[in-house]
């Protein structure tokens, strides 16, 4: 059947189905995908679908339209893999994953987070329900509201209030830190340490949370130097 429709290749992956597109206009790719699904509704019923869109540049409206059309066919769009940073940003905005989760044993090497030089820079408030996952450092210029989550393999710095959940050093880096102007988080995690005892403060001051010499996750006022 794939031979009939070389524009889109469907294959099974660990987390569901992956649709990979050949080079074409987005409208053609989209139509080809929907055609495949309508062809075999029983096969796709209830499936979790990831898209590999290659270098295609997708805007929010494109993905929202496709997601609606897929959900009308009982197919859940959960990830969009793409080379274009615009597409990646769009997917993150819609809360879609941007890579397939796969075991990465070699990344478990005892590494400091800074070795991953990349940082994700977010210039808006993260609202409830938003989840950011990033294999490096994360900087937020805004608040992290209650119900939002950040999971970073490196450090997390928030220029604003933290009321949601933050996990730094998510792959086991115990040297990762979490800094914020107001750290009233519901829960903080660094590597495999969890802290849930952060009380909201009357007059918040900048704080930094890290794992101290005794091995406990602790936050202290930012007054170095």
């Amino acid at each position: 059947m794939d031979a009939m429709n070389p524009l889109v290749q469907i294959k099974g992956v660990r987390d569901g189905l992956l649709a990979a597109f050949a080079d074409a206009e987005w409208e053609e790719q989209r139509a080809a995908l929907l055609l495949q699904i309508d062809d075999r509704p029983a096969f796709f019923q209830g499936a979790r679908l990831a898209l590999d869109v290659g270098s295609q540049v997708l805007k929010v409206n494109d993905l929202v339209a496709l997601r609606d059309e897929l959900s009308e066919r009982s197919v859940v769009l959960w990830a969009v893999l793409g080379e274009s940073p615009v597409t990646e940003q769009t997917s993150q905005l819609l809360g879609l994953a941007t890579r397939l989760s796969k075991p990465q044993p070699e990344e478990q090497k005892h590494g400091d987070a800074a070795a991953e030089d990349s940082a994700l820079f977010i210039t808006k408030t993260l609202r409830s329900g938003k989840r950011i996952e990033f294999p490096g450092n994360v900087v937020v210029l805004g608040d992290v509201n209650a119900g939002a989550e950040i999971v970073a393999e490196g450090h997390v710095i928030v220029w604003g209030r933290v009321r949601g959940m933050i996990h730094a050093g998510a792959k086991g880096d115990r040297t990762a830190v979490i800094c914020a102007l107001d750290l009233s988080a519901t829960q903080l995690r660094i590597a495999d340490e969890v802290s849930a005892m952060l009380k909201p403060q009357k007059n918040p001051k900048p704080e930094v949370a890290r794992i101290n010499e005794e091995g406990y996750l602790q936050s202290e006022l930012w007054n170095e130097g």
Partner: protein
Amino acid sequence: MTAQVITVTSGKGGVGKTTAVANLATALASDGRKVVCIDGDIGLRNLDVIMGLENRIVYDMVDVIEGRCKLKQAMIRDKHYPELYLIPAAQTRDKNAVSAADMRRLCNELKPEADYIIIDSPAGIERGFKNAIAPADRVLVITNPEVSAVRDADRVVGILEAEEKGSPSLILNRLNPVLVKNNDMLSAEDVLDLLGVHLIGVVPEDETVIIGSNRGAPVVTDPKSRAGQAFRNIAKRIQGQDVPFMDLDQQGGFWGALQRLTGRK
């Protein structure tokens, strides 16, 4: 004329979406506007009861979408305002009977006929909600001064931003100035501080709202009701008029602060 489509939504249930739709629509109609309300809560319809029109329903929105009747046949005229109409939801179907494209088509067909189309969204963030916001030109998010309601509103605001619907306006419903004064309730400042959106109105807790809803007579028609006054003011603001916020607390301290806060915008 071409109507502005306004969707009222909240995330959490029970915060006053349907009551707000009935009251805003009635207030706009009493200002001489032509208004069509659409109950988007397929399967759990309520707007007809609050507007006192339940015994007049013959056709509903799903009948229109599935071609069993003309749009005009499903538009129920209000008892008091000849320029106010309701398109009821189907009670015996569910959200899957309607798609976002159906809602857009319905609103496009209505637009030349009205000044305002007001859509009552169901609770939640699933399909019914997505359908309700799809045709919206403007979204009003309604919340109560409770932590759980505010968190759900925050989620909804995030989704609206992600879907490029723009930043919504906020209605803070059922505020009790006495509890706020005693620090037992979130204040309007607390809520605005967290949500960071434009405030279009604060409605005080008022038992006449419940009485009016049960009687099928929205409180905006009661000139003595405080909540009714608040809804009338919001309707004026929707029409682009600059109406000062009510002084709910006669002592003025907190409301003065609120006015300063909103005046600063």
